[in-house]
């Protein structure tokens, strides 16, 4: 079976349970003093990489976690290694990168590190763009399976992916190398155990400046402003089912 050298990109984002607040200058969302975590979809991609290794111990030879972001993204990479990634690479930058820029960085990492399978989250919960995996597949000219809910690696190195589509699911078969993006149903990510967290501190983590990758990462989009959505006012409560129906009629919904 073809050796699998997996790349798992992860992103440090505001924790999913935190309600984000727009900053006073309306230039973005307030991140100072806010709890940050690994993007939930990226936990699924790491989990899947580890499960692939558990199912095919000799086939998966290396799992590399990658992140592009501030120095603190090292914490996210340590989490990835505590879950089971072998090593990590950080492209350090203090500016927010757009998906196209990240895809170009990943394209370089795939070449430099000789990867043949990239598993990403289907979207990050901050930008909600849902683009990076597909862009990477396009840049590399590789097959892509997005919104995966099941991944099976077959004997001949073909990868069978069940993907979530509108109204149900479809099954695709990809040749390697390939790009897969994880949907929520793919798996249930494990918690990193304390011994594994300790071990992860000793695993190699390489830091490089984004500029060292020799990739054009300039922004194509200018953020004009960021605002809070118009608030909805709760309309109060009714006493019983009769009141519910009457109020819905008043509102023209029935």
């Amino acid at each position, binding site marked *: 079976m073809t050796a699998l050298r997996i790349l798992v990109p992860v992103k440090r984002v505001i924790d999913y349970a935190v309600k984000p607040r727009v900053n006073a200058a309306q230039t973005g969302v307030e991140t100072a003093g806010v709890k940050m975590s690994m993007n939930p979809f990226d936990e699924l991609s790491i989990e899947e990489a580890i499960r692939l290794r558990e199912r095919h111990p000799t086939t998966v030879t290396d799992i590399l976690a990658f992140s592009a972001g501030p120095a603190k993204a090292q914490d996210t990479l340590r989490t990835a290694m505590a879950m089971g990634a072998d090593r990590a690479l950080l492209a350090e930058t203090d500016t927010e990168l757009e998906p196209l820029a990240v895809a170009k960085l990943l394209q370089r990492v795939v070449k430099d590190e000789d990867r043949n399978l990239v598993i990403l989250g289907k979207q990050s919960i901050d930008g909600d763009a849902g683009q990076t995996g597909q862009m990477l597949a396009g840049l590399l000219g*590789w097959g892509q399976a997005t919104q995966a809910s099941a991944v099976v690696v077959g004997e001949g190195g073909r990868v069978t992916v069940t993907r979530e589509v509108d109204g*149900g699911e479809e099954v695709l078969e990809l*040749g390697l190398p390939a790009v897969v993006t994880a949907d929520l149903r793919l798996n249930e990510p494990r918690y990193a155990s304390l011994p594994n967290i300790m071990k992860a501190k000793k695993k190699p983590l390489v830091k490089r400046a984004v500029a060292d990758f020799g990739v054009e990462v300039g922004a194509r989009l200018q953020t004009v402003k960021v605002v*809070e959505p118009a608030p909805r006012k709760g309309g109060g409560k009714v006493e019983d089912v009769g009141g519910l129906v009457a109020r*819905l009629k008043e509102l023209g919904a029935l």
Partner: protein
Amino acid sequence: MLLTRTAPSVLRAAAAAATAGARAHARRFCPLSTLAVLEHKEGNLLPQSLPVITAATKLGGTVTALLAGTDAASVAAQVAKLNGVSEVLTVSNGAYDKSLAENFAPMLQENIKAGGFTHVVAAHSAFGKNIMPRLSALLDVQQISDVIEIHDDSTFVRPIYAGNAIATVKSSDDIKVLTIRGTAFPAAAEGSGSAAAVQESSADPKVESSTTWVSENLAKSERPDLGTATRVVSGGRGLKDKDNFDKLMPPLADALGAAIGASRAAVDSGFADNSLQVGQTGKVVAPQLYLAVGISGAIQHLAGMKDSKVIAAINKDADAPIFQVADVGLVADLFTAVPELTEKLKSEK
């Protein structure tokens, strides 16, 4: 550049020549031209494609609709009648039937090059989400996903952070690639004027796909489509199990003529199929009426339904966050309230 696409038939050539002058005139003052990438299935245009045309017309230039696949030519006639469509391009090649990004994106790239389009628009559906970013990378442009408002030809509005913030962005790319949120734009209607010209595109690079389509398993439903329904009833964890979900939700949905949705908790617990999930990671809906049953109202769920015109909620917890957004709230045990509501709605029909 438009002329390079005119069809070989004499009649069509004559028609094209008649409009070419008008188009060239329009182009001088308004060089914008938009390619609207549409979806079809079993010989019919899919409803999510109708708002795509409306969004395309808002960009201000001419709108060319593109249909690819075996049935492209037959669906083209339906599309040609729609308001705002100036031209329909078809790529009648069965290789595109399964909408695999590996060959679909290069085909779009070729058509964009041939037509000199400045904007490309598709729905933020499973199709658009899969194909458009790949196309954007091939074009070397930064796509703008899930657009809810178009300010001008380069300024767009989109929700971020599960809809907790609304960002206005300005693109500096030569070609703007957008996916649009269907619920944010009205559906294009059939126009009264003459139908747009339909032409078979000569831009088909026939790239081999490294990926093969194996099978699909789509949920069959007689009810309205969740994404476009005018009424949605949605069930959550409060229903406790699948039996209750199946016993209470379908009769309520039928009494209202509504589609059925579910929260992530209900989907994860196996009460409902994943395709019914409403929220940041599921479907985004904006019906006339959204009735949340046994749903607490986590921000990820609200992201998928808070643009509904009227929100109603039935929950036994008076402090559930859903009541902060609901226009009408009923604090009650859903196991008695839902059957009562269903009966009441039926008797009033």
